[in-house]
């Protein structure tokens, strides 16, 4: 009679079939019976106990599960969770054997596990082997012999780096007879960039990494600096506890470095939305939920997310505990409504040392030139005074109508320091050029700006116009093309129903929005005529504050326009926190290509005559017309600037240099790179957490504030830990945490052996799988923690084991006793990950570009895949060229709503959510990719060229070399014969129709060696393609 183990045999049955009504969830509990706690399961109530040790007769549960009465039988038929006969029998045996109870194994502390003693001590290289051997013996299995060196080196190359060894590397290994020859290879691989890439790829799945935002428009974002942080962390073997803490809470570490802040971007990788109609809070809650789920799955193998709407049905996590955990994440400062254009704050600008130096140099040069300019002004002051006198006396009285009153802001956009420019009225330097917008030296009057690459100019602390007060505004504008549209400037919050106002263009016409809530409480009106293009044009709006379109006038070059009204009802405030920006609204409606100069705001509705004067005036005359003593300091400054910039030659020379420096600096700044990071709300704006009833964002239970805490069934947080994300991270990475190390080493095992020890890497709860090697898992976990969470050490231990080094050949003993190789009586043999299938082809063909890190790249993919699904067809794929086509596949730009189809065919997850285990399928689509995809055809062509240009000259030598490249082994006779037959056949075909070779060889961008005969090259391309499609090429053996 088999010995029944509670955790292995009984708990899974109880969990799957009984816990739903008799488990941790209080709300769904029936008959007040709990079967997840020992005390309750054996407790006598009203003369009955569910289980009585050694007595079927007295065990009420036994009667219930075996009853024929549909009203009595458990589980009730309507649950559709009938127990199988085998399950009933297992329960019977367990009761008869004394019904031993154990706590759930994964929630118990990791105990010291002794390495078992085994018979075959010669085979044991390290403790892993002892544990494996012990299980093999129990199952009546025997380990396989060590695999050949060629197979071994190819295997360890793929497992540690995802790339194949070169023939030279194979040869070195074959010739190295030292006892530690293999260890040397392993050490070299662990130190390589490729190792970091291989490990990072796995982490990218777990951390739902993508280059786009997923929801709605699925627009671009830049999170690759975070991805590069991970690469470097693996490369430098950062201990897993530090690796984790920095990713969960790097921003909260004392004196957090830039790198630590970037690391915290782990929890900004989740999907975000930009959909116009969403209720922001609903999505903000979703983001928090995702962070809880991902943290739970990745570090603890817990399905915390099941307790969002109700108590967890299987694991001891109440809904309240869920929200305690949620509270750790509930104060990140990112909003529910994010953007379809890049990153959303909190984010960090990434400044490399190189970049920093360039910036500093330019800023210094700028300062130097500014002081030279000032010096010249002082030096030539008398010339200026002379000019001023003449100019004032020459002033044409008719043209110099006084500056209209009520000017509240005036941006001449002439002089920039450090990308900042002045508002003459407020005399502050608070206008800052951002992104790719640039300074233009010659605009309408002196300098101006040009909007490019979604850049803009931001004006701080100005612009709170109101719906019921008059105002006027406008600017000189040069628009680049017909039917131009967007916001010349705006102070508007798109996220709050477009509250605010703008100077608006659509289809070349000029107008404005004044909005409380779009479209219900808003004015919108545009001119019927279009503004001229490619010339400086004065655009101006006046508004009398009456809340109606009839209170608005639109002027183009001083001429009042006929208007077309689109919305005409405004009765409430238009004030928003969002700053005034030139060249866009807050985030949208960019006017790339527009040039802007001389922006003015007035606190009254100017008359037609006044607007006309503005449209005709130069900037100097109105100032000259003011009595000298009444001129403001800033107005005086305009006169000085005007004189020196237009009349003084020595000054003009310096000024020219300054402009060009400004431009260089602006250009450099526009290439700004950011990465999203975590960042909590300021202490005075901390959000309170409440339990959300039924998990609904709109149903907080405000009767009780929920404070951050960890679930009670796990060790409590140490007293000195702060109750924030940093405290949470440290708690997770505490040596005593029962789950973190177990869950982590289980994933490493999966990485190296192709399958984890616990088949459910994301669920170590009671619904999870029983480990195939429980003691080994414990030992690995403890060993990992005891050695400082040293990742490379643990990985190395695995690949150094005899278990790892076995042959992968399936023998009849295996088919009978362990067909799926749960117990490692042989090495696993499995298809390479999709990324490695492609990387292998690139490596073998010699095309692979080994550049490490950096932004995602867009290699070959069939045309039209983005546009056919994108919002209004606005996202189009633009393929990269040259070296970027040949980067390792982990760098492939990951658009999560339409990911690269070649990789998707090979089970790469979309990465919209956390994935801890990939499927490994075998489909006809995969065959089509490796046979027909441009990338693979080109690789075959390059591979053929490489073979034909190698030192191997005979067919046989060439075959050996080609096979060695692709599979690690030279070709045997059978393979040579098959390929020689194919060669003859294909060559004949190409010879018969010469166009064929030409067409085939044209595929792909890589240069072709014209010295090779086309038919020969084409025939070998076919052979190369065949080799790349062999099972032995596609598999790790």
């Amino acid at each position, binding site marked *: 009679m088999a010995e029944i183990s509670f955790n292995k045999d009984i708990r899974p049955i109880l969990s799957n079939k009984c816990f739903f009504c008799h488990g941790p969830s209080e709300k769904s509990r029936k008959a007040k019976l709990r079967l997840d706690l020992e005390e309750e399961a054996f407790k006598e109530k009203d003369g009955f106990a569910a289980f009585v040790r050694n007595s079927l007769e007295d065990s009420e549960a036994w009667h219930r599960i075996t009853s024929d009465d549909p009203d009595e039988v458990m589980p009730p038929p309507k649950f*559709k969770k009938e127990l199988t006969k085998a399950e009933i029998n297992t329960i019977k045996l367990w009761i008869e054997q004394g019904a031993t109870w154990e706590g759930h194994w994964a929630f118990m502390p990791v105990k010291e596990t002794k390495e078992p003693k085994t018979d075959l001590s010669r085979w044991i290289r390290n403790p892993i082997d002892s544990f494996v051997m012990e299980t093999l013996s129990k199952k009546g299995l025997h380990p396989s012999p060590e695999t050949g060196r060629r197979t071994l080196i190819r295997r360890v190359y793929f497992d540690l780096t995802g790339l194949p060894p070169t023939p030279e590397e194979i040869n070195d290994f074959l010739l190295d007879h030292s006892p530690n020859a293999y260890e040397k290879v392993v050490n070299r691989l662990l130190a390589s960039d490729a190792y970091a890439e291989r490990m990072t790829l796995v982490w990218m799945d777990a951390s739902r990494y993508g280059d786009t935002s*997923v929801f*709605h*428009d*699925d627009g671009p974002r830049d999170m690759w600096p975070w991805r590069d942080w991970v690469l470097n962390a693996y490369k430098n073997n950062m201990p897993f506890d530090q690796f984790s803490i920095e990713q969960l809470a790097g921003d909260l570490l004392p004196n957090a470095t830039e790198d630590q802040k970037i690391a915290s971007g782990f929890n900004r990788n989740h*999907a975000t*939305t930009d*959909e*116009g*109609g969403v209720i922001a809070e609903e999505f903000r809650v979703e983001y928090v939920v995702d962070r809880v789920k991902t943290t739970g*799955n990745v570090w603890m193998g817990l399905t915390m*997310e099941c307790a969002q709407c109700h108590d967890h049905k299987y*694991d001891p996590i109440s809904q309240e505990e869920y929200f305690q955990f949620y509270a750790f994440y509930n104060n990140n400062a990112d909003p529910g409504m994010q953007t379809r254009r890049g990153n959303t704050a909190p984010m960090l600008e990434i400044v490399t040392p190189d970049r920093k130096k360039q910036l500093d140099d330019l800023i210094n040069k700028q300062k130097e030139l500014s002081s030279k300019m000032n010096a010249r002004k002082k030096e030539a002051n008398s010339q200026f005074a002379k000019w001023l006198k003449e100019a004032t006396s020459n002033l044409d009285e008719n043209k110099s109508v006084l500056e209209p009153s009520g000017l509240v802001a005036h941006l001449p956009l002439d002089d920039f320091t450090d990308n900042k420019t002045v508002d003459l009225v407020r005399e502050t330097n608070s206008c800052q050029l951002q992104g790719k917008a640039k300074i233009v030296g010659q605009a309408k009057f002196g300098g101006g700006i040009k909007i490019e690459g979604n850049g803009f100019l931001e004006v701080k602390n100005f612009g709170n116009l109101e719906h019921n007060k008059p105002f006027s505004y406008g600017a000189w504008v040069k628009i680049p093309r017909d039917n131009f549209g967007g916001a010349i400037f705006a102070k508007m919050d798109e996220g709050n129903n477009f509250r605010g106002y703008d100077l608006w263009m659509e289809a070349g016409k000029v107008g404005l929005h004044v909005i*409380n809530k*779009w*479209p*219900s*409480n808003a004015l919108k009106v545009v001119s019927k005529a279009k503004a001229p293009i490619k010339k400086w044009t004065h655009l101006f709006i006046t508004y009398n504050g009456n809340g109606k379109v009839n209170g608005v006038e639109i002027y183009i070059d001083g001429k009042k326009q006929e208007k077309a009204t689109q919305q005409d009802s405004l009765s409430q405030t238009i004030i928003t926190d969002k700053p005034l920006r030139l060249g866009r609204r807050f985030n949208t409606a960019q006017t790339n290509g527009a040039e802007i100069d001389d922006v003015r705001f007035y606190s009254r509705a100017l008359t037609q005559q006044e607007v006309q004067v503005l449209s005709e005036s130069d900037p100097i005359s109105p100032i000259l017309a003011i009595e000298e003593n009444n001129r403001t300091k800033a107005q005086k400054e305009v006169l000085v600037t005007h004189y020196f910039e237009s009349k003084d030659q020595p000054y003009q020379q310096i000024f020219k240099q300054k402009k060009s420096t400004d431009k260089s600096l602006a250009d450099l700044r526009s290439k700004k790179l950011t990465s999203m990071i975590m960042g909590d709300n300021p202490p005075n704006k901390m959000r309170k957490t409440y339990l959300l009833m039924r998990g609904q964002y709109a149903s907080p239970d405000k009767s009780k504030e929920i404070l951050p805490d960890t679930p009670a069934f796990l060790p409590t947080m140490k007293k000195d830990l702060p109750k924030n994300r940093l405290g949470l991270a440290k708690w997770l990475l505490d040596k005593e945490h029962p789950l973190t190390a177990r869950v982590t080493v289980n994933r490493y095992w999966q990485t190296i052996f192709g399958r984890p020890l616990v088949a*459910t890497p994301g669920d170590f*709860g009671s*619904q999870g799988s029983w480990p195939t090697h429980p003691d080994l898992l414990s030992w690995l976990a403890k060993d990992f923690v005891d050695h400082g969470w040293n990742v490379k050490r643990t990985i190395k231990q695995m690949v150094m084991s005899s278990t790892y080094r076995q042959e*992968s*050949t*399936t*023998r009849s003993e295996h088919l009978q006793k362990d*067909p*799926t190789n*749960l117990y490692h009586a042989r090495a696993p043999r499995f298809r390479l990950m999709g990324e490695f299938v492609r990387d292998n082809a690139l490596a073998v063909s010699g095309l692979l570009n080994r550049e490490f890190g950096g932004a995602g790249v867009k290699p070959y993919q069939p*045309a*039209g895949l983005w546009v*056919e*699904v994108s*919002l*209004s067809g606005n996202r189009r794929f633009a393929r990269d060229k040259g070296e970027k086509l040949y980067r390792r596949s982990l760098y492939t730009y990951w658009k999560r*709503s339409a990911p690269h189809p070649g990789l*998707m*065919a090979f*089970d790469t997850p979309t990465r*919209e959510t956390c994935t801890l285990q990939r499927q490994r*399928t*075998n489909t006809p*689509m995969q*065959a089509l990719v490796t*046979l*027909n*995809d*441009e990338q693979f*055809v080109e690789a075959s062509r390059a591979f053929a060229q490489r073979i034909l240009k190698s030192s191997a000259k005979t067919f046989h030598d060439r075959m050996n070399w080609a096979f060695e490249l692709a599979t690690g082994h030279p070709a045997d006779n059978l393979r040579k014969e098959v390929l020689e037959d*194919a060669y003859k*056949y*294909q060559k004949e*075909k190409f010879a018969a129709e010469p*166009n064929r070779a030409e*067409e*085939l060889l*044209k*595929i792909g961008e890589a240069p072709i060696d014209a010295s090779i005969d086309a038919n020969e090259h084409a025939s070998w391309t*076919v052979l190369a393609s*065949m080799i790349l499609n062999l*099972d032995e090429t596609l598999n790790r053996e």
Partner: protein
Amino acid sequence: MNPLDIYQAHTRRQMIGLGARGLGALGAASLLNPSILQAATSQSNNEFSGTLPGPHFKPTAKRVIYLFLSGGPSHIDMYDYHPKMREIHGTELPDSIRNGQRITGMTSGQKSFPCVAPMFEFSRHGQNGSWFSEIIPNIASLADDITLVKSVHTEAINHDPAITAINTGSQQPGKPSMGAWLDWGMGSPNQNLPGYVVMISKGKGNAQALYDRLWGSGFLPSKHQGVKFRSAGDPVLYLSNPNGISRDMRRNMLDGIAKINRAKKMESGDLEIDARIAQYEMAYRMQTSVPELVDLKDEPQHVLDMYGKDAMKKGTFAHNCLIARRLSERGVPFVQLFHRGWDQHGNLPKQIRGQTQDIDQPAAALVKDLKQRGLLKDTIVICGGEFGRTIYSQGKLTKDNHGRDHHGRCFSMWMAGGGFKAGFEYGKTDDYAYNILENPVHVNDLNATVLRALGIDHERFTYKYLGLDQRLTGVEHPKVIPELLA
């Protein structure tokens, strides 16, 4: 899948597969989906070739064609007509009707919610006298063939969550689509074509985005994801041989590859290699079966005429409908058409006319064509979108123009064939087509009912992932609506 399942699957494959004709000769097979072999060895109607051994109930349908109108087609302007709408036109939506309903960020700030009657004529059709709009005269002519449900509802009020919810049972990404579930569970009787095919067309209206997840496989093996049949380039991605490689040259390549793979199998003992050989063969067959399928030259003129002027124009809804019929004829269990452009926030009268012109004749032709070929009895045609639209105008209501915002509280869909009742109307809404008065059908109820027609008990149709018995119909308590089934 837990190790034990894999073990069982494996041994079953050995028993069935190797015992029959030898694995290599069979169609698709892999470690994770062994039961395809089962189908190949048994032609019984009572068995599936997917992971489910067979239906839980006697099925009334074997396949589905899902005409998905993406963007939120207005139920008010097409189906859900109440004569009273003419009277309430221009009046404010009463609070008693809105009843605290949350509305999207696009109109939540609107001060006024003027009701808008459809700017189209409606008339009654069929034995049942169901209302249909003048803009869908051909669909109206199906009145006696379809079940029209006017009480479908969803919690979601925005496109991304709503379209994800109706297609995968959950508003959040990560779950498999309905087609993927069925491909996994039922498999396909056709070994030369994918079991789940997706086709996309676009109208002139405002086009919302689609996402691979809508036909994705979520946590199921990726082989079950929908295969897009495309109108430009290869009909299936990567289908064509590279330029310069002819079919016989490809045959020669595959023969060589198979020889070496067979040798490898002997050397390694790895049975999975048989599956790889089989997949390469299926890929080869698809290279002819797909072009043959999408080539309409053997369709007689009168059939083309049924589907309308666009029938021969690739990438149109009409063309896709015709291909859908051809797929169903060949046994493909799940075909899904996405027609884009149904998001009429503004300019509704004109845009919806254009949209319905795209779909009205072809959708009706598809049902009639299936019927005349005897396929409708076991093919379900479903037509609808992710939600409906509001009775009130978004933006300004003028004499001849208005928009409508999203509305998930009730919307209309219709089903034809495959055991759904013919000439039947279900569910009733108020005069504002705003709230359901009778017989609500949640989107997950609808999916559960479709599964029921296919013989599947949605509660037993589960896949264990992250601790839960995951199912298409979600964790709430969806129910089959038996009234919809004959």
